[in-house]
């Protein structure tokens, strides 16, 4: 079965992500499911649809056979499946992956960081340096989008396509504050329940994107201007990195928050909250800005026609 309608392809990919996030819940990964639902089924699908408005909805049909590709993919798959015979069966508690550092994290998370959500304590504290690196990747990719779309300087003045839907406008006006409130809850409750800076950032950006879809990019820019999103994206990253520098100045290792206050556990909690806030700010502003850039491109494209 070959799809020529790319909208169908993109919607199916979004559904695939949504089902995957259901599977993550079944496999006890609440934080991951949360992120996948917001990112994979939400923002990613939206950006792909936005791209389709710029590049065309239908693909040219082609009927060529790809024997070499098929054979090499089948061979790779066969080797991977052959390799599973060395793996511990699904769900076994004595698999090698369950019996190294993760046991320590589970046992010491409360006493060392005061954080019941072990995913958050690993993300922000035990493996904080990794997360800082990931945030740099997101920041750099965002800058890449800005650079690629640079040049015209056009700001979208498109009339939002849903502007006439009164019900949608009214419902959205009521929903957006709730979504923003939920994003803040996810941000600051991430130590105790599923959530954290990454999810909160995406949800926050989703609320702003929803506003921009219904009321236009110009209205959304009055909330957060381009200068503000650019500065905020850098501030989030700076906040994360400067917490690390602070810990070094106060005599600890880089991103070892225990030295931030007298009580090491309180210091860890403070550090985790600060770096998660940095993550949230950068992710939210970068995703929102990326969406606006696609919107501008669409406007410039339609002006050209």
């Amino acid at each position: 079965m070959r799809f020529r309608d790319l909208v169908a392809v993109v919607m199916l990919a979004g559904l695939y992500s949504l089902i995957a996030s259901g599977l993550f819940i079944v496999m006890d990964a609440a934080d991951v499911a949360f992120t996948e639902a917001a990112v994979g089924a939400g923002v990613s699908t939206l950006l792909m649809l936005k791209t389709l408005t710029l590049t065309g909805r239908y693909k040219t049909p082609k009927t060529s056979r790809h024997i070499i590709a098929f054979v090499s993919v089948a061979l790779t798959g066969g080797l991977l499946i052959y390799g599973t015979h060395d793996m511990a069966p699904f769900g076994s508690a004595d698999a090698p992956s369950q019996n190294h550092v993760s046991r320590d994290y589970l046992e010491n998370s409360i006493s060392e960081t005061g954080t019941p959500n072990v995913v958050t304590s690993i993300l922000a504290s035990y493996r904080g340096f990794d997360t800082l690196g990931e945030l740099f990747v997101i920041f750099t990719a965002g800058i890449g989008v800005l650079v690629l779309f640079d040049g015209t300087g056009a700001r979208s003045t498109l009339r939002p396509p849903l502007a006439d839907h009164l019900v949608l406008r009214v419902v959205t006006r009521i929903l957006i504050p709730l979504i923003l409130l939920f994003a803040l809850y996810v941000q600051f409750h991430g130590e105790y329940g599923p959530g954290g800076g990454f999810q909160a950032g995406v949800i926050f950006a989703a609320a702003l994107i929803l506003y921009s879809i219904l009321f236009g990019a110009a209205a959304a820019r009055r909330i957060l201007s381009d200068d503000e999103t650019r500065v905020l994206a850098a501030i989030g990253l700076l906040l994360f990195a400067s917490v690390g520098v602070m810990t070094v100045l106060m005599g600890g290792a880089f991103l070892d928050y225990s030295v931030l206050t007298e009580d090491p556990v309180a210091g860890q909690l403070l550090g985790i909250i600060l770096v998660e806030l940095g993550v949230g700010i950068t992710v939210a502003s970068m995703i929102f800005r990326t969406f606006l850039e696609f919107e501008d491109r669409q406007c410039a494209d339609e002006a050209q026609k």
Partner: protein
Amino acid sequence: MMGLAVYWVIFGLMMIGLYITIVDGNLIKKVVGLTVFQVSVFMLYIAIANVEGASVPILVAGVDNYSNPLPHVLILTAIVVGIATVALALALIVRIRESFGTIEESELDLTTPDSQNDH
């Protein structure tokens, strides 16, 4: 045997994604194939983290069997990095379309950018 079947299904999905990425000439479909591949890798990690009868790794009193939180952290950040790189790929596709007038690999002639559409 049943214990490994989960991984086989995941590898199957992964190979579907890989095949689309290699074979399909449409750049958007390539990105979709990459997403399918990527999400299957996420599934693989989360499946490895899973422990039979365990609970979500948020510590509560009275529960002492939790799934492995470390792969969850790796995948959580990978998802958000994934959307950033997908956005970059889509931006590249938009620019390719503007400069060359097509996003079909077979029609792309990289030697002659369409100067009319080139910003």
